[in-house]
């Protein structure tokens, strides 16, 4: 027993020494966990671009090439001239408006660097199918959006070599956080003249309605079919942009009338149009809503969800 105790003490010392190693600077690879990222793996994931152009892939695109791409993939939300449809962000206009009562912040009037435009289109646009644009498309669409902001001429070609040299008008007007910028003090008595207090009441009633949870109504709510439940995720990720707000003539989720008009042609036809695309009198449906990575089944279920949902 005595020797066992000794072993335990020695082990404890070794363990304590090992654990306390965390408190001091550990060496690179100390834990030996994970696998080394190869150059090829890093290149596959590393998509970010900086103002100095670091990270830009080799490529180019012209304003004229970008025009058609923009109209096909961007204009349904951002407007033909970058004015913004509905509540989707405007991309152009607003010059010299930043000191006005209602400033109009756009790429041209506000953004400090052109690289941000390239990076964001590449990583996050179009909203329904991010990271599906080719390098050439990102260059061309970026060029066209710069053109919409009168920052380049109509014969301009954007390349990996000239992007960093584009000066954005508002670049000099950004500065690093310099707060605190207020200096209140801890006054306890007679801090202000009570007769001079002006009470400003609510500007307008925009508080969302808060519904009381009523368990009796939960049972009367129609249940969604299995296909519709399956389709809800696709709707949320790929369809809501247009079908949530009704841009480009899209029937809105809760617009029963628009949906029943379309369903007069039969569910199969509606699903076929959703998969193959359709140009109607009231609007246009791009194939699979522009997200070609969706399977036919996913599109079908999403349509089912939109038809059933209220």
């Amino acid at each position: 027993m005595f020797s066992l105790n000794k072993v335990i003490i020695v082990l404890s010392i070794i363990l304590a020494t090992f654990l306390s190693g965390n408190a001091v600077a550990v060496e690179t690879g100390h834990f030996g966990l994970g696998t080394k990222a190869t150059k090829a793996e890093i290149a596959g994931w590393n998509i970010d671009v900086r103002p100095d152009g670091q990270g830009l892939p080799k490529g180019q695109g012209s304003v004229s090439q970008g025009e058609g791409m923009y109209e096909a993939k961007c204009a349904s939300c951002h407007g033909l001239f970058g004015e913004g449809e509905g509540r989707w962000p405007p991309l152009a206009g607003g010059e010299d408006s930043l000191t006005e009562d209602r400033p109009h912040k756009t790429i041209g009037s506000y953004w400090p660097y052109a690289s941000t435009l390239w990076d964001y289109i590449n990583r996050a646009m179009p909203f329904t199918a991010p990271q599906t644009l080719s390098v050439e498309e990102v260059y061309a669409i970026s060029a066209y959006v710069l053109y919409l902001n009168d920052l380049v001429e109509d014969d301009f070609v954007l390349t990996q070599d000239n992007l960093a040299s584009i000066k954005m008008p508002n670049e000099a007007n950004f500065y690093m956080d310099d707060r605190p910028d207020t200096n209140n003090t801890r006054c306890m008595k007679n801090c202000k003249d009570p007769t001079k207090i002006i009470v400003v009441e609510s500007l307008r009633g925009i508080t969302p309605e808060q519904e009381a949870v009523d368990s009796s109504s939960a049972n009367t709510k129609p249940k969604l079919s299995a296909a519709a439940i399956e389709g809800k995720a696709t709707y949320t990720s790929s369809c809501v942009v247009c079908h949530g707000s009704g841009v480009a003539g899209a029937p809105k989720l809760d617009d029963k009338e628009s949906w029943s008009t379309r369903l007069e042609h039969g569910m199969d036809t509606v699903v076929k149009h959703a998969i193959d695309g359709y140009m109607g009198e009231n609007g246009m449906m791009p194939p699979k809503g522009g997200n070609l990575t969706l399977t036919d089944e996913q599109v079908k279920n999403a349509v089912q969800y939109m038809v059933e949902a209220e």
Partner: protein
Amino acid sequence: MSPIQELKGIITPNGLVFERYHAGSPTVNPQEHRLMIHGLVDNPLILTMDDLMRFPSESVINFLECPANGGMEWRGPQMEALQFTHGMISCCEWTGVKLSTLLAEVGVQTKGKWILAEGADGAGMSRSIPMDKALDDALIVYAQNGEKLRPEQGYPVRLFNPGWEGNTSVKWLRRLEIGDKPWHHREETSKYTDLMPDGRSRRFSYEQEANSVITSPCPENPWGQKGSYEIEGLAWSGRGKIKQVDVSIDGGVTWRPARLKGLVLPKALTRFSLPFKWDGAPGLLQSRAIDETGYVQPTISQLRDARGTNSIYHKNSIHTWKLQSNGKIKNVQLK
């Protein structure tokens, strides 16, 4: 929006934590998910979730707040509910690996001063984080209040920057790149920058300054009969501990110190309390937080004088509830 009008204590239950996204909430398979750390490092790594969980873990209790919390009310009161004036705040116990541990493992080169954090969501959400913060208290988090992160909170792994605006705590974290300069991406130029009246804009305004609000009474929790009540509320600061909260019932003419109750932790929600006998008289209820740096929560007028009304983010002014003689509460502002 967290229903902070209903919550007790300082911990927000996981299902009631506010949610904001930049392109919806993705479904990420933890078996397939990887975190890559590369850039100006000696030993670039790809980590699985199993790898991450083998590093020594830490747990901290910190608030998480969207910098647009309260941002609807720069020009005047608009919302008749506490949940909508202040509901983009929550406070949880967060568990994960210190980012400094992972940075030591990859061996950051001396030129490495900034880190780009990138999410696996549709926005590829990206923010530039200064190295000082990464080495100070940033965590790579996989659990929240004792269970794995909820999908909408970044499952299986997110960055967490205590005390900083919520969007910097990038969810569904898939990549950390170490560089020598910031990236100036969309969510740190077009958005999350603070426009001032002179047309200039403050950027990288990461910290959430001291703030507080009375949660009872509030529009959702009115008073009824005259008599004893507890004026209760929440205070917090991204710069450290709450040192003191004062309460006024006369619109800021006189103030009395409230008691801080329960845990008082740095960069965490902190409860304050002031027992009060109400005689049925109308009043103007306010709370004013002071943090351990000595910073005193400003009035809305002081904030507007400094920043105008178009900076959207970081509105942390003293909030006023108008107590009416019937016990009902209205959201107002004082000039």
